[in-house]
């Protein structure tokens, strides 16, 4: 059975179509990543699934209950972290955690363990008595995440949870999600971080209110319409912006030690690149084919729109 089943879901506000027949299924105890630009419909989808908004047509079923027919059943199963989560600014870190634990009916004994676990990822242990309003941006985000995770819901909806969270905590936060999943929680998460998408069991790319690709992360290279080559050399990075060959190089992406070039035809592009390297006296550069990532597929699609 699917933990979440979305059937031809549409939502229109006046004449804006936020969702257009969105269909997707999420297996129990799996992690589903939703990727898309701002305004693609991710938040609207989450709000309908968590019974905060009514759709124009179509249906969402969570744990066997349809959101429109059985909202109170659905609400009991889910946890939701909206993009803008409001903490109690004048309560301390500790008080916020306890408040949300009480709200979800967590026993005192469970609570201690859970809070410990969450503090190890959030690194807020030294700041338990600080008022939430005085925390840094990323610390607030981590506290909000902790408050959402304090109970272990069956289905968890997370809307861009790690925006503003530093790389160390981000990695550990994803380890916690992996633990929850192992414990049976189904997780649906939207994110602008493509490395996070790679950690999901399935990924859907959403644009204009419906999916344009959906698969397991390892299958995404097949959705890439062009070819991708990397030019490795520390000097090339500095010159990346000069790689301006409109018909040959369709996109340039810079990394620390290389640039990735999207080309329509690798065989035709290589001589052009070699000539460029030569005229800029770059020696020992390595040109090689690379596998496109989810980000490459996403950006490739968006540029064609």
């Amino acid at each position, binding site marked *: 059975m699917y933990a979440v089943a979305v059937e031809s879901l549409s939502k229109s506000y006046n004449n804006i179509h936020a969702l257009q027949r969105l269909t997707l299924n999420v297996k129990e105890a799996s992690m589903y990543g939703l990727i898309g630009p701002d305004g693609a419909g991710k938040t609207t989808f989450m709000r309908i699934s968590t019974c905060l908004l009514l759709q124009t047509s179509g249906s969402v079923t969570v744990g066997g209950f349809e959101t429109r027919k059985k909202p109170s059943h659905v609400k009991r199963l889910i946890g939701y972290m909206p993009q803008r989560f409001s903490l109690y600014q004048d309560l301390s870190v500790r008080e916020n955690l306890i408040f949300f634990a009480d709200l979800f009916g967590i026993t005192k004994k469970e609570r201690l363990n859970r809070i410990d676990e969450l503090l190890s990822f959030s690194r807020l242990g030294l700041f338990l008595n600080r008022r939430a309003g005085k925390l840094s*941006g990323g610390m607030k985000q981590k506290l909000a995440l902790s408050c959402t995770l304090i109970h272990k819901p069956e289905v968890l909806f997370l809307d861009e949870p790690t925006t503003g*969270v530093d790389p*160390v905590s981000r990695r550990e936060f994803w380890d916690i999600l992996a633990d929850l999943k192992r414990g049976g929680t189904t997780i649906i998460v939207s994110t*602008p971080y493509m490395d996070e998408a790679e950690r999901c069991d399935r990924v859907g790319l959403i644009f204009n209110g419906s999916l344009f690709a959906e698969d397991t992360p390892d299958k995404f290279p097949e959705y890439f319409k062009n070819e991708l080559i990397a030019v490795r050399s520390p000097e090339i990075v500095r010159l990346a*912006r000069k790689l301006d060959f409109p018909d040959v190089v369709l996109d340039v992406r810079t990394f*620390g030690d290389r640039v990735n070039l999207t080309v329509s035809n690798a065989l035709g592009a290589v001589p052009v690149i070699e000539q460029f390297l030569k005229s800029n006296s770059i020696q020992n550069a390595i040109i090689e084919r690379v596998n496109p990532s989810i980000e490459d597929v996403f950006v490739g699609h968006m540029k064609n729109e």
Partner: protein
Amino acid sequence: MNNGNVIEAQNLTRKFGNFTAVDSVTFSVGKGEVFGFLGANGAGKSTTIRMLTGILTPTGGKGSVAGFDIIREQEKIRRNIGYMSQKFSLYEDLTVEENLAFYGGIYGMSSKEMSSARKRLYERLNMGDIRRRLAGSIPLGWKQRTSLACAIQHNPRILFLDEPTGGVDPLSRRAFWDIIYDLSESGITVFVTTHYMDEAEYCGRISIMHAGKIITIGNPTVLKKEYRKKTIEDVFIYLVSNADVQTNQSNN
């Protein structure tokens, strides 16, 4: 100001009560650099930026920005820099154009200066279509551009960007960095914080902050060599996790 540095901080410190948010940091940034100011959550990045931009007064140390003293000449600093805060503070119920006019007023621009700046920016940032829309109703990527426009309309020589790309999709992030490079090529100094480590790779120099202190500083390629890591993300995780262990030990 000595040796072409446009930002200088010397033992810069900020306490809140008996908590030290920024703990004696010393660094300098040269004209035209793109300087990446990285660090763990709560490390003190925003607090440092607020001191450098003349919004918050240090409790110790000193510094200068664009040749002005950050304690005695805060007003002059504010007129000579552009600042984009962590939360893109736009007035959601004002249009894009009204937001620009509001911030232009703060920077002491005349209405004539503002209208010529607007013309230039609409074109350069490709914003013509959204100028009459309410800031609250436009997508995040456009909000980000609008806040950038607000911060650069008075032609500042130094730009402070506090997490300008938080939550923005990859395509908008890249477009944003193209603009940053253009600005930098025209001689503007860019001081930027980010939690996206791919962006850190684009910076000329970066520093990494942890618990109020700068724990490393240098060119990304050089740092990767020094710590024998493949990416800046790996360098960051390595240094910050180690520093965490030390902080915890000294607290026990």
